[in-house]
């Protein structure tokens, strides 16, 4: 296969130039910066938590911090929600605008940015004043101040407005291009946020109809199992909402950066449609050990979770094939000789290559989480954060950092400052992450609990020692890695050579062109696939709601933090 692909590798050509007006680029830039600001707060708390597992307590150095759990809430919300969605709110609309060569709607762009900022301010108020130390999962009946829930709703609304912007220009483009297939990059970017929109509805119901009225005192009690189920209804798909923008980059941009091409247009579209269908009806695999949910339904969700692993398997092959093509175009020979020939000196590419490598382990550990008998051994142990730091904490975060290495220069028009510092950041973060996750995973297998301030716990198992030390060492390296990333970004904005930024996004051509007939054409009918997704969701969740409702309002709020 290798020779076959290499033989047909021409140099990737530049498409017709198009740039968004500066006024729009500025909003996209600021949206990114909101995410980076959140990430700054998030990583300081991350460092404190990793060290606390190693028995070192630095929480006393944090101003206004009243407990470990307040910091953990800040860490989860800032890194997993604000950073990720701020990035996607900027990245996906930019991809669609560029793919269709159309301007975004400026009012919607500002509205999306404004709601993101407003949501952030409300959440920051609640978290900083210790009125919302409920962790990002927000499990009732632990109750937060209403500003926390309302703030998160605004953050979600900002993602809906970003989607609306993409749909709007897609509609305009279709009107002007009757009978033309929408470009791959636009398709996969839009599908990513369509999936998220659908996935975000249960959490919107949870917050708007249950937690907000309850936190305001309009209703006295709430239903802990129902709200928790609504959370995970959104909560597993949310990880795909983080991951799919990274996949957009891996599929459509990374091949170009590596010197290859997208292997197959149709297969790529199929992968994203499969994610639209299968990401959501899988939430019970986070609730395997919960009472009140029938075991048979948990099994249905287990099967669907294994199903959603399939498009990731396809991705592993397709993206690797694109990379192999690039490596051979750069003169790589033999079975594995193409790997060292990849442009590892490009910090944007190297970050994403390292992200892919760590994601292999993230994927395997995820499959173990989904395997419901094995889940009983690791549920709520540090195994779980060990796992998801190799998915959202690497595949996603590292890819977003890698993309930033071209996107910040592209949006500011300034040359990336400190290529070598950026490369060092990638490697230090990756090595730190692997050490950290190895520690969390091994201690988790020995039963070390997650989300626990072990420094003050009256119990301790000597078997956890190695894992705890590795967690502390790895977490510290991760902190150093991200700190270097910030140095690069700040210096690029401040000192980067003006006018020397990239003139276009690094998008790739395809090896196997878009289908001109046959069933693959139907992959573009996103509305139709949304209906299929809803049917699957009704099958997977319907029996639970039918047998469970009406809500069981049993719990008053507890603010014991």
């Amino acid at each position, binding site marked *: 296969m290798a020779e076959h692909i290499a033989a047909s590798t021409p140099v990737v050509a530049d498409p017709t130039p198009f740039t968004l007006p500066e006024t729009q680029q500025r909003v996209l830039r600021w949206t990114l910066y909101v995410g980076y600001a959140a990430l700054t707060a998030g990583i300081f708390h991350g460092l404190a938590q990793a060290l606390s597992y190693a028995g070192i307590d630095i929480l006393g150095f944090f101003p206004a911090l009243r407990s470990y*759990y307040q910091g953990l809430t800040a860490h989860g919300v800032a890194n997993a929600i604000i950073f990720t969605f701020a990035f996607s709110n900027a990245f996906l609309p930019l991809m669609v605008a560029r793919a269709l060569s159309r301007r975004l709607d400026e009012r919607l762009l500002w509205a999306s940015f404004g709601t993101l900022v407003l949501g952030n301010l409300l959440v920051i108020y609640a978290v900083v004043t210790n009125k919302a130390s409920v962790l990002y999962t927000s499990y009732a009946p632990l109750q937060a101040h209403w500003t926390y829930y309302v703030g998160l709703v605004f953050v979600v609304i900002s993602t809906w407005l970003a989607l609306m912007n993409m749909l709007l220009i897609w509609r305009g483009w279709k009107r002007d291009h009757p009978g033309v297939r929408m470009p791959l990059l636009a398709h996969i970017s839009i599908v990513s946020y369509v999936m998220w929109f659908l996935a975000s509805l249960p959490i919107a119901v949870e917050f708007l109809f249950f937690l907000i009225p309850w936190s305001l005192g309009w209703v006295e009690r709430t239903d*802990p199992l129902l709200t928790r189920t609504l959370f995970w209804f959104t909560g597993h798909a949310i990880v795909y909402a983080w991951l799919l923008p990274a996949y957009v980059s891996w599929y459509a941009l990374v091949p170009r950066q590596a010197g290859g091409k997208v292997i197959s247009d149709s297969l790529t579209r199929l992968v994203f449609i499969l994610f639209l269908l299968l990401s959501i009806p899988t939430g019970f695999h986070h609730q395997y050990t919960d009472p009140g949910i029938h075991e048979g339904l948990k099994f249905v969700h287990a099967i669907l979770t294994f199903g959603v692993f399939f498009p990731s398997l396809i991705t592993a092959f397709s993206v690797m094939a694109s990379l192999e093509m690039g490596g051979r175009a750069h003169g790589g020979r033999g079975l594995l000789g193409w790997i060292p020939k990849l442009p590892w000196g490009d910090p944007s590419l190297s970050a994403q290559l390292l992200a892919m490598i760590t994601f292999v382990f993230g994927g395997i550990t995820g499959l173990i989480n989904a395997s419901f*008998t094995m889940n009983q051994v690791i549920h709520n142990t540090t195994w779980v954060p060990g796992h998801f730091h190799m998915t959202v904490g690497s595949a996603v975060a590292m890819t977003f950092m890698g993309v930033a290495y071209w996107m910040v220069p592209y949006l500011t028009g300034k040359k990336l400052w400190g290529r070598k510092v950026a490369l060092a950041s990638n490697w230090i973060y990756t090595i730190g992450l692997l050490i950290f996750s190895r520690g969390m995973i091994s201690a988790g297998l020995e039963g070390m609990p997650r989300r626990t301030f072990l420094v003050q716990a009256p119990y301790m198992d000597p078997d956890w020692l190695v894992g705890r030390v590795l967690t502390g060492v790895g977490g510290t390296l991760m902190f150093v890695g991200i700190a270097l990333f910030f140095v690069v970004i700040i210096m690029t904005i401040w000192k980067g050579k003006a006018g020397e930024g990239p003139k276009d996004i690094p998008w790739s051509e395809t090896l196997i062109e878009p289908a001109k007939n046959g069933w693959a054409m139907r992959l573009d009918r996103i509305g139709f696939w949304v209906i299929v997704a809803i049917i699957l969701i009704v099958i997977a969740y319907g029996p639970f709601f039918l047998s469970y409702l009406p809500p069981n309002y049993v719990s008053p709020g507890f603010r014991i933090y």
Partner: protein
Amino acid sequence: MKVHTYERAFMTLGGMLLVLCMAALVYATVAMGIHLPGRAGEIEPGKVFTTPPFDNPGVHQTGPNQYDVVIIGQAWRFHPMEIRVPVGAELNFIATTFDVIHGFHIEGTRVNMMLIPGQISRLTYRFRKPGEYLIICHEYCGAGHHNMYGKIIVE
């Protein structure tokens, strides 16, 4: 849709691998009897201390080599905090919570349940080895979460 032969082969093998893993899970559940908690009844959280069987937490023999282990989680302790059970006996854990969500995990075993207000959690397990096992509340339950633990002595 045109798919490269190698990719097709990879997809087929990958799909088969997933099916095999699923088959192993079915085997573990059906043949080995490893079950997850399911629907096991509802209860009013504020009244757990006066509702049977939770009005009498602890270990109760229900048959030859068969015991109910009744447990309540409350911020930030378990009732009872220390449990003694015989090795090899069939233990039916019956647990719930008085206030917020708690976790109930016996370290090194698959006894791992969430305690959710309003719901009763049930799980059956046999200890094969005598010894002292740590019980950990592994779900965040407020400022004193890390103080919530217990001990189970298998003899």
